């Protein structure tokens, strides 16, 4: 396949960026999207140009490091995959593909397609944990049976990879899906109960301080989430928050 790529280039955080056109030829449909960019970069380097900077690491859809807004969608046109799992067979010969960074006030651009998502880490520092020291003397793992449905629902929430697609897809740049996934995981498990009140209040406070927008229940986040994190988590977090506000 031959393709036209329109890629966001931005030298540094304080520079002005712009879309730049590139032609790429002989793209195999079996390539992943990032492998296609590898080929482009290899050509650029050989020509003496600067390669396009983009984040990536595991290339199997689990580390959450890759991002990219492709043709107006976080992680591109396929569903249930990250950009590294998107394959070129989803495109046609002659296509023009727009490639931009995830855009949100809380995710400033570092270079080209690389953004700073450390706001997510800071929200987790505020309460995304159970306060248990490592001792080897905690109670036996089977001492508290947990209803399978609750355990499975907690697991589903915990599969969030922290990529930021929800924020990039949201017209308000809200991080509610991300934050609610963590709050839900602990809200559904007995281990999370003791700190439930502080957790939800502190995490939501930090989320607001980072400059993420509000949730208006549009649901784009759920559609674009590569891991299918459910909107129910947002509803659960709202209930937790309300409960905590009365208590708190």
């Amino acid at each position, binding site marked *: 396949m031959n393709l036209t790529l329109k890629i966001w280039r931005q030298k*540094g955080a304080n520079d002005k960026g712009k879309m730049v056109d590139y032609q790429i030829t002989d793209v*195999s449909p*079996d390539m*992943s999207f990032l*492998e296609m960019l*590898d*080929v482009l*970069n*290899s050509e*650029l*380097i*050989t020509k*003496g140009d*600067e*390669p396009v*900077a983009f984040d*990536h*690491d*595991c*290339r*199997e*859809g*689990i*580390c*959450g*490091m890759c991002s990219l807004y492709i043709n107006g969608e976080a992680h591109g046109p396929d569903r249930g995959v990250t950009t590294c*799992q998107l*394959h070129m*067979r989803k495109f046609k010969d002659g296509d023009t593909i727009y490639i931009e960074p995830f855009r949100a006030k809380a995710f400033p651009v*570092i*270079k080209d397609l690389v953004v700073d*998502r*450390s706001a*997510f*880490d800071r929200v*987790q*520092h*505020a309460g*995304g*944990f*159970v306060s*248990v020291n*490592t001792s*080897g003397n*905690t109670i036996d*793992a*089977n001492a508290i*049976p*947990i*209803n*399978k449905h609750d*355990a499975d629902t*907690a*697991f589903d929430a*915990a599969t969030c*990879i*922290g990529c930021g697609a929800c924020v990039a897809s949201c017209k308000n740049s809200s991080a509610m899906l991300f934050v609610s996934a963590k709050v839900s*995981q602990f809200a559904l498990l007995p*281990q*999370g109960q003791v700190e439930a009140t502080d957790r939800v209040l502190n995490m939501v406070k930090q989320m607001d301080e980072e400059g993420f927008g509000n949730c208006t229940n549009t649901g784009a986040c759920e559609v674009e989430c590569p891991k299918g994190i459910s909107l129910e988590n947002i509803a659960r977090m709202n209930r937790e928050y309300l409960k905590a506000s009365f208590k708190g």
Partner: protein
Amino acid sequence: MALDSKIPQGPLADKWTKHKNTINLVNPANKRLIDVIVVGTGLAGGSAAATLAELGYNVKAFCFQDSPRRAHSIAAQGGINAAKNYQGDGDSTYRLFYDTVKGGDYRSREANVYRLAEVSANIIDQCVAQGVPFARDYGGLLDNRSFGGVLVSRTFYAKGQTGQQLLLGAYSSMNRQIGRGKIKMYNRHEMLDVVVVDGKARGIIARNLVTGEIERHSAHAVVLGTGGYGNVFFLSTNAMGSNVTAAWKAHKRGAYFANPCYTQIHPTCIPVSGDHQSKLTLMSESLRNDGRIWVPKHKKDVEAIRNKTLKPTDLKEEERDYYLERRYPAFGNLVPRDVASRAAKERCDAGFGVNATGEAVYLDFASAIQRYGKEQAHVKGLNEDDAALVKKLGQEVVKNKYGNLFQMYEKIVDENPYETPMMIYPAVHYTMGGIWVDYNLQTTVPGLYAIGEANFSDHGANRLGASALMQGLADGYFVLPYTIGDYLANDIRTGPISTETKEFDEAENKVKDAINQLVNNNGTKPVDYFHKKLGKIMWNKCGMARNEKDLKSAIKEISELRAEFYKDVRVPGEANEFNEELAKAGRVADFLELGELFAKDALQREESAGGHFRDEYQTEEGEAMRRKEFQYVSAWEYKGEPKNAVLHKEDLIYENIEVKERSYK
């Protein structure tokens, strides 16, 4: 320097308890005066950083990714072993110890492995207390699955994302300490040297990957949890950024590198599709619980399948060769990884590979779907003879167990594995070799520790499935935090370590010189060109089977490639900016040295053991032939060029286990 493994005296089962009771402790007030650097934030580094901070040390943690949660432990799928014996099937600490030593083909250290088995149960308790959502059965208790090379069900799991859930558990413990200010986290930082002052590790030189700035960081001890070096093969299941740089720099500063040739080639990966390939994707070994591995019995069927004139599902049972079940009736499809990988290679080399490149075998779920479907129909009181219904019910069960893996396969290969068998082929996955450490996990440089995959200690020549997560967390949560205290107890009066010393000057200048050399090289070829070339040499000559001739030529070729790299590599951009090509160039430069040492190690090991298979040393049946005179750890001392590395041997003594021919028949 003679190697001292510092294994405590006394009976095997008492060593760890006795050791903990007799080593020095640092009192809580003094811990506040001590700084520890932890490099790498995977299961080993992340759990160590969190635990050291909980104890009261001041921790500085470093990772090259944009968040500690991205470390490649996250990609581990299948599970984590622990001798809990929840299934009542006869498991025990001793059995886990025994299986691990046997699985490692009698090339690991007894005392370390026993300790690993001993603390394994604590890991599960700890993780559940953190809120890790392991799979549970309908009674609400933890579920287990079985893994290759063992006869009990001791593997705890969270669907196919066990590594993710355990890493997020360690990450959450880190977050708690970051929030309290006890861990200072340095994301997007890469360690480029260890600073040794008066013979002790006292800090590191790191590059800020966003600004390109070279930074000095000091501490009373340095811990490396920087993972394995599988990417020396270019194509592996490791993440793109996984590298040997931290370990290699430590090696150059005096840490011996042990058993570099012990590499695990994982049997169930998605086959290579073309030259553009940047990495390989693993399909969890847990699939071998239900999947049956086969190739056609007859060459004519192989040809027809390759020409796409025959579908694998049309081949009758008697026309298929379930070669693992045929060769290893006792363990069948659940033989250890090295055995399964070599058996696949043997069939493909003999011309029975089922894809266009001839390097793929089938992993088939049709029998499992039938079995589960019938069971479900029976449970639900439905018609067990309704083939369509049975298939549907069976597929649902398989989907529940392996849904995410099947989805991943379909996305990559564009075939539906519920309907047609998966194609798999072995790929580089894990490195058992690593930095040599003693019982305390200390390297040959005092104050420098190595944990998790970065060290060599527990898996011998082959690692069993679901044991990497166990070792990473055992080292980080339960071993290092104790043993490091014994060393740090001597540092309570040392005070802060200054970074304004000649040792830091020297290390920083060395790092800057190396970077300047790369960015000013003005060659013609990108870094990947060299990395791919190195990978080809490694795979063809140091891969699943090795021989003297190939290894000697690999040593020569790698050394020549290294010279070409420094002559002709092109690194665009500047040193003082975000520059991924520069970071990659530094990593590949180190792989080009490690690769040669790897081949040299494989050459001197004139035996076959676990993941190291020498063509010259095999039994009549084609199995690995161990040799008593090689019952040692090879620990290499750096002396300039890899060809000058000096071999030190640590003899392995088995007092509690009888060294036997490893048999899975």
